[in-house]
């Protein structure tokens, strides 16, 4: 019942070591990832996981105008911030395992950008934790997208969406968050 202990622990202790005792897998990498491999790494040899929710974010081209995006990141902070977000999710939901992978560098439409895998005994915790992590990742993990276009239009930085900020705020009604 370590996850239950995690939920009631002092939030001030959450920064580096999740009170749940679950050590999340957090990676910031240039290379692609494989959803099946990463899921297997979480579930292999375990009999206590009843739910696995995965979210994969892809590079999207809506108007056939994008040749690639350039994902810039702040190396010294990216891993740290993802770990902090993961720690908050582990405090809030009784998870069995958690993986967050974010790529950087040049990524073409259709390719993977980000992966979140949340595993738990029951589905609700896994669904909600994955959703929560993506909302916080979008607004506070130090990554920036730059569009490179096919048609010669100027290369430009993607603007932050107001909707992402609103999505994040959904979680703050009943939760202490340093992000507030």
């Amino acid at each position, binding site marked *: 019942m370590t996850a239950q202990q995690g939920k009631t622990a002092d939030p001030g202790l959450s920064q580096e070591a999740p009170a749940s005792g679950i050590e999340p897998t957090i990676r910031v990498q240039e290379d692609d990832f494989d959803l099946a491999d990463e899921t297997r790494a979480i579930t292999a040899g375990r009999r206590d996981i009843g739910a696995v929710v995965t979210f994969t*974010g892809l590079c999207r081209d809506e108007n056939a105008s994008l040749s690639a995006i350039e*994902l*810039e*990141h*702040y190396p*010294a*902070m990216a891993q*740290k*911030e993802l770990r902090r977000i993961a720690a908050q999710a582990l405090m809030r939901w009784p998870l069995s395992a958690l993986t967050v992978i*974010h790529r950087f560098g040049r990524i073409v439409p259709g390719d993977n*950008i*980000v992966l979140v895998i949340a595993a738990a005994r029951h589905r609700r915790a896994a669904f909600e934790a994955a959703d929560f992590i*993506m909302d916080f*990742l*979008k*607004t*506070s*993990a*130090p*990554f*920036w*997208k*730059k569009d490179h276009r096919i048609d010669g239009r100027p290369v430009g*930085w*993607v*603007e*932050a969406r107001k909707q*992402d900020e609103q999505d994040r705020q959904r979680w703050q009604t009943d939760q202490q968050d*340093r*992000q507030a």
Partner: protein
Amino acid sequence: MTVKLVYFAWVRERIGKNEEEIELPQDVETVRDLLAHLKTLGEDYEAALAHPNAIRVAINQEHADHGEMIGNAREIALFPPMTGG
């Protein structure tokens, strides 16, 4: 006090540097003071920081509000709102 500044995305492009060490004047106490001070350093800085509210700041790799004290920060990062994921 000397502090390392690091820049990302369009802040980096407009300032024209990835990072630099600068000597902070005594009266620069908060993040807001720092942004105001940097704007006086030249046209590039002025262009990058024309709208301070659009600038996000991290002190020693942790997000900081504009009202936060700089203290003995080793590294301060300036960047636009994040667009990962």
